[in-house]
């Protein structure tokens, strides 16, 4: 790991700086802290939205990130925040380190592992944040490492899956991946051998393990329901991966190309590799996930490093001078030069980076809190409305909890946001009396022309509109009875 540590150190500094210095770019931490507080107060995990969500009061909810919520609550300010954010920054570092160690155990060379670590770090840059899905990256790396064990330690994967399921619903991957590894192992062993039987048991046990959380079977059921959930259309990180995703181009894509270049029977699928089908099936599945959604870029890298780098190492191994081809000679200088260029790129990137804007509508919502009356709020970015949770006399149409809101609510949200021909009717029918928009956006411009509304607050970034005349709907009746 001597070269890989150097690479990991560069990324660690970047992750740590980002996590501690920069304010969160989304509203998730706000509702997660409230969730943590609620769990600590009631000693129970809530299973439904409350009346604060006026578009879907008491809708069933699986707060999959409940353990992260508790941690977020403890780490909300001061030194607590530094520790909490620092721990989140360590997550990708630990994930890369485990993946690299895993690769070394599989016979990867130091140089190849350093290349893998560089690609892995770059693949994580865009997705990184103080977020639950980042916190579980090391668990995925650990899970893959455990599955590769050829002994009793492999059963540790079950414990990892159980722990993982209390942090994030992506634990659903555990039984699926274990199952695929078992199938691959059966192909490798050409039968139902000892290792395959063990992996099959682990896969079955993982299915039970991911129910070892406050939600039981509801967690995998929730994860499955996400497959055809339309909310993915409206969330940036679920968009289909393309070349405009920097982490894909700089991190995952090179790994994928390396996997293709060094795949096949001479390296990845070489007959002496006794887990070649396992590798191929896992890599193929995660490559499919990679191309399906941008949020899988980092996950792909974690899985690919231990598989791709040993294959790369075979190519990088020293050959007798007489056997060297032109491609070998080119690689001898091209790979170190490429790694150096990547390191320079990261250095320049780090030097040039400026703290991003918070991207949260703190100011208009703070102004709203001082306004008299009850407010049923529509936020143009649903994550902003997380800041309104728990504020007296404020209810939200849609907030950062996102998943539990029913499909019709999402459809209406997008209709209003895109100014569908029915948008004004939807504002009325839902009883929305407050709209927070980003300045000069289409919704802001349309609200300015919307009769019955007035501009109650504006700054250089945001505007806040309130109704001048009350609207009577079923929703407003519920509000008055709260």
């Amino acid at each position, binding site marked *: 790991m001597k070269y890989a540590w150097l690479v990991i150190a560069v990324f660690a500094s970047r992750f740590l700086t980002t996590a501690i210095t920069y304010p969160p770019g989304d509203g998730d931490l706000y509702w997660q802290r409230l969730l943590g507080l609620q769990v600590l107060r009631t000693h129970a995990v809530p299973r439904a939205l409350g009346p604060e969500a006026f578009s879907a009061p008491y809708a069933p909810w699986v707060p999959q990130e409940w353990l992260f919520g508790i941690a977020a609550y403890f780490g909300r300010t001061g030194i607590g925040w530094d520790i909490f954010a620092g721990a989140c920054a360590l997550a990708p570092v630990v994930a890369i380190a485990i993946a690299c160690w895993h690769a070394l155990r599989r016979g990867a060379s130091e140089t190849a592992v350093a290349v893998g670590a560089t690609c892995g770090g770059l693949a994580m840059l865009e997705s990184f944040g103080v977020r639950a899905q980042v916190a579980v990256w090391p668990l995925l790396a650990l899970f893959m490492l455990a599955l590769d064990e050829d002994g009793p330690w492999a059963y540790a994967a079950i414990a990892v899956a159980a722990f993982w399921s209390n942090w994030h619903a992506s634990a659903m991957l555990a039984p699926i991946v274990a199952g695929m590894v078992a199938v691959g192992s059966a192909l490798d062993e050409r039968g139902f051998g000892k290792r395959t039987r063990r992996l099959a048991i682990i896969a079955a046990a993982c299915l039970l393990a991911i129910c070892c959380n406050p939600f039981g079977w509801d967690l995998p059921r929730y994860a499955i329901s996400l497959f055809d959930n339309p909310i993915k259309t409206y969330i940036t990180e679920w968009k289909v991966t393309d070349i405009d995703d920097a982490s894909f181009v700089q991190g995952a894509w090179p790994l994928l190309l390396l996997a293709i270049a060094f795949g096949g029977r001479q390296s990845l699928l070489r007959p002496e590799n006794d887990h070649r089908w396992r590798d*191929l099936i896992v890599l193929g599945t995660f490559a499919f996930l990679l191309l399906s959604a941008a949020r899988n870029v980092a996950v792909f890298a974690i899985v690919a490093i231990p598989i791709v780098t040993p294959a790369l190492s075979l190519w990088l191994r020293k050959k007798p001078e007489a056997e060297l081809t032109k491609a070998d000679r080119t690689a001898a200088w091209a790979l170190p030069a490429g790694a150096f260029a990547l390191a320079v790129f990261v250095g320049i990137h780090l030097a040039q980076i400026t703290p991003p804007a918070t991207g949260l509508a703190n100011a208009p919502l703070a102004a709203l809190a001082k306004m008299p009356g009850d407010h049923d709020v529509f936020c143009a970015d649903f994550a902003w409305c997380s800041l309104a949770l728990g504020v007296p006399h404020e209810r939200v149409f849609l907030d950062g909890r996102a998943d539990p809101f029913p499909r019709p609510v999402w459809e209406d949200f997008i209709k209003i946001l895109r100014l569908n021909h029915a948008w004004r009717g939807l504002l009325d029918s839902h009883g929305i009396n407050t709209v927070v928009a980003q300045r000069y956006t289409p919704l802001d411009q349309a609200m300015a022309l919307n009769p019955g509304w007035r501009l109650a607050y504006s700054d250089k970034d945001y505007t806040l509109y309130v109704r001048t005349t009350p609207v009577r709907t079923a929703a407003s009746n519920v509000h008055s009875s709260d």
Partner: protein
Amino acid sequence: MVGATQPAGREHLVDARTASFAGAGYRVAYVALAAAVVVATAFAPVNSGAVALAHFLGGHILGDRAIPMRLGSETFTASGSYAGGIGWLGAVANELLVRAGHGYALFATMLAALVAFAFVELRARRQGGRLLALGAVVLAGSCAPGSLGIAGGITTAAFAAVLTYVLERPSRTATIVATLLAVVWCNVAAEGLLAPAIAACIAAATTLRGGTQDERRWSRFACLGTALALLATPALLSYPLYALGTLRLDRDLFGVVAYHPIDVAPLAYRVGFTAMILAGLAFGLQRDRGASIPLFAAAAVLALMNGAFVIVFGVLAAPVLAASAAAAYPRFAHARAGSARADIASGVIAVALAAGLVPVVGVPATAPGYALAASLASDGRPHRVFCYDVDWCDVAISGAPLARVFADGRVAAYPSTVLGRQRDVVAMKNHWRSTIDKNKVDTMILRNDRPLTTMISMAPGWHLVASDAAASVFERAALR
């Protein structure tokens, strides 16, 4: 040429166990695939914007006996801007085919598709044998959805497939043929710019795989020849610059044109591109690994940059994968040449099928949005048109002689300021209302269910004239 033998030193790929496949079963499969290509092309949607632009340019060239090198009065924002006459030969050919009848244009597209896939098969067969060559055609075909219609991009794929086939065996003849092909390609379309890029990838491959001195020399000459071909167009030195803009790879065009694969060719990206990547993982770039990487990687990046090129990735990379599969699993590869007569017969059957199918296929209805743009001519009045989708305005300038547009699909010819304003109006930013007013826009063709459409419908003076499944036309009378 058909059924070329294996290169020296590849005898280990020969496996008699599969040689029997090269018989009748193979010929049936070949004909079935060709029939599938013909039928899929017959019913594929037409790229209305590209056809309209070709009709506009071709009509002017045939009418005026001159190639218009600048934008004309059909646009009121960039009249006189240099356009370079990019794609003049393709436009003339299209116009002649259209004048002859829709069936001729369709037949030409079918032939282009057959050529593209035939050369995929020929390249794959060289190193992978017949069975894997069929697999390569299927794999390339999975990248074709969205590209098979008239002006849908299959012609680009055909040029790329033929050029790569020629260049993969470097020689003096190959260099001359490739250069001539590149000259034709550059005059037919902006995609001719890809010719030297392909030649460079193959020259790199030839060097990396340790080709003979002659092969290395001729592959470099081919690079030079195809690069010089870029200058053999009416645009001369300007061709590379304007052709590059026409390829729509520039990220500055975000908001003006669509280029993400999932938007441009969703099915081809989800199915074909993903299948190619997964096949790559399964087989690896086995044979001449270092040599295959430049072409495979460059084609994949091209497809990722603009979904219109997923089919180009398919035709360029599928044979590479077939060769890899042959090296990884020699039992599926065989070098039996087969019967050239049978190949020719299969080709004749495919062409005959295409010719027989063409009269049966009716003229397809114009796609929503484009149809509205075409209908602007119906009132016989002049219009100053803003199109939400610039490609709709291609149809407007082509079908409505009195229509003048804010911007059309020739994005490379428009100044960046105009394109910036187009983007601002679509996104409702930066004084977009004054942009519309100052330019005296009196007709807007807008995508349904977009904020701008609702804002225009609320704005005083504008009224809805027509709408279809994709778009609505708004007009205002005050400025006329």
